[in-house]
């Protein structure tokens, strides 16, 4: 029983970090129905920037905020330079561009910071908040989950209560009528890219701050696959779906795989994808995704 509870706690911890990257992908998908494969690498680069700033002596949370701003501005630049000139309805060139960005960002990070894993500073108090028999609920787990929920609330408020948020949702809903309402499509999508990258950087920083992990240029590769799966599972256009998807994937990874003896540990990635397959068969638009509304 203790072991089971401990694994549920681990599931929530991992799931929260996957959800933060998934949220970033959901933001871009909502607006453009495009999956940005570079999202994880942008987040990793942002986390390295945070580490660098911290090494230069900036206080930890200050470094995180500057890192989020940095990756937001960088993403806005990437959108302007590589994405905007292409037709948003034609996905193939855009997908190839995001894959290209994935490789370039990974290489740049490796050149600057090397492939050696480095330890990332603590973002949250260390130690356990709560111990019951052998179940340990660390402060890290509580804060990782809390940050995820907080980010979702902030994003939701931004999208539903502000003018730019309304414009962003309008563009996601009907590109042509947005244009005809005077919304400038390019800058609106750019805002989405910046927002997504900032959320991703926070996610990667929290991920790297996990006491059992270290930061290195390839750290997001696994997390990216889990996050894409989480995003698809929750419904690619739903913010809260990303959280549900993230938690589900975390659960599959640390609970289901542990208790089903014929799935080897190495297969946890595949197990996650199988769960995705089952969910999408039953609900093609994901758990919380919008089913396409069309009236002719």
């Amino acid at each position, binding site marked *: 029983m203790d072991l089971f509870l401990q694994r549920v706690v681990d599931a929530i911890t991992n799931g929260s970090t996957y959800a933060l990257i998934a949220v970033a992908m959901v933001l871009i998908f909502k607006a453009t129905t495009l999956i940005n494969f570079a999202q994880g690498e942008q987040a990793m680069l942002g986390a390295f920037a945070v580490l660098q700033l911290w090494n230069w002596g900036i206080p930890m949370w200050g470094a995180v905020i500057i890192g989020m701003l940095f990756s937001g501005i960088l993403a806005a630049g990437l959108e302007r330079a590589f994405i905007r000139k292409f037709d948003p309805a034609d996905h193939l060139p855009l997908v190839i561009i995001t894959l290209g960005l994935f490789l370039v960002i990974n290489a740049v990070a490796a050149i600057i910071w090397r492939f050696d894993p480095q330890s990332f500073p603590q973002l949250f108090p260390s130690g356990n908040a709560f111990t019951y028999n052998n179940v340990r609920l660390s402060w890290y787990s509580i804060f990782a989950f809390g940050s995820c929920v907080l980010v979702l609330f902030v994003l939701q408020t931004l999208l539903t209560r502000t003018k730019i948020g309304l414009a962003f*949702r*309008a563009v996601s809903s009907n590109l042509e009528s947005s244009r005809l*309402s005077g919304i400038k499509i390019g800058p609106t999508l750019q805002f989405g890219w910046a927002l997504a990258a900032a959320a991703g950087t926070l996610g990667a920083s929290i991920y790297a701050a996990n006491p059992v992990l270290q930061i290195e240029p390839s750290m997001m590769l696994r997390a990216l696959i889990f996050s894409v799966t989480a995003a698809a599972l929750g419904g690619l256009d739903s913010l809260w779906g990303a959280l549900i998807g993230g938690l589900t994937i975390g659960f599959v990874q640390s609970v289901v795989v542990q208790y089903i003896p014929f799935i080897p540990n190495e297969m946890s990635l595949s197990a996650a994808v199988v769960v995705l397959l089952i969910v999408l068969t039953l609900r093609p638009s994901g758990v919380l995704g919008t089913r396409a509304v*069309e*009236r002719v």
Partner: protein
Amino acid sequence: MTSPILHVEDLKATYGPVQVLHGIDFTVFPKEIVVVLGANGAGKTTTLRSISGMIQTSGRIELNGEETRNLTPSEIVRRGVAHVPQGRGTFPELTVEENLKVGAFIRTDKDIKIDIDTCYENYPVLYERKTQMAGSLSGGEQQMLAVSRALMSRPQLLLMDEPSLGLAPQIVEDLFTRFVAINREQETTMLIVEQNAQLALDIANRGYVLESGRISVEGKAEELINDDAIRRAYLGA
């Protein structure tokens, strides 16, 4: 007569290798309702899309005497043109009220709330549905919302692309009756593209007939209703 709100001269437009508009000329004066009639593929939608800057064209398009042919759609909206596109002019995943707020996107004044209430007075059913997703509305309600959304930018000139398309006759009649009222009360000039010639000519001041990218007939609405060629082609008489 007063100077025109919209003046189009020798307008040509192509989609890829196909030339759709072969140099058309027409004029719309303030407070008028002008209708452009034509069959499928005559170039009606292209004409409206040219005016709102959605496609590349050649020729002249003047709004209040100023050339707007090379402006972007968002600049043209800011000069007082609103466009209700064919079919889906709404944002299905946004609520009715949010749709109206998007319509007021270019505005920064304090009267947006008042105008939203005016929309609800025009179409009370929108008030009843204000927190519903636009995608859940019926076809007629969506068209009311699309028109209201366009009016929220306080346009001088409202372009409407086949507002009657796919709607039941009774609903179309109500819709068009409201157009006349809006035209009178809010002094909104309207350029309506239609296949439903009878209804459109009933509410219009003047009309143009577009055939294969050229204007074949023009005149006052009452003249067009009695024109033999038009009766044969569009009124089924």
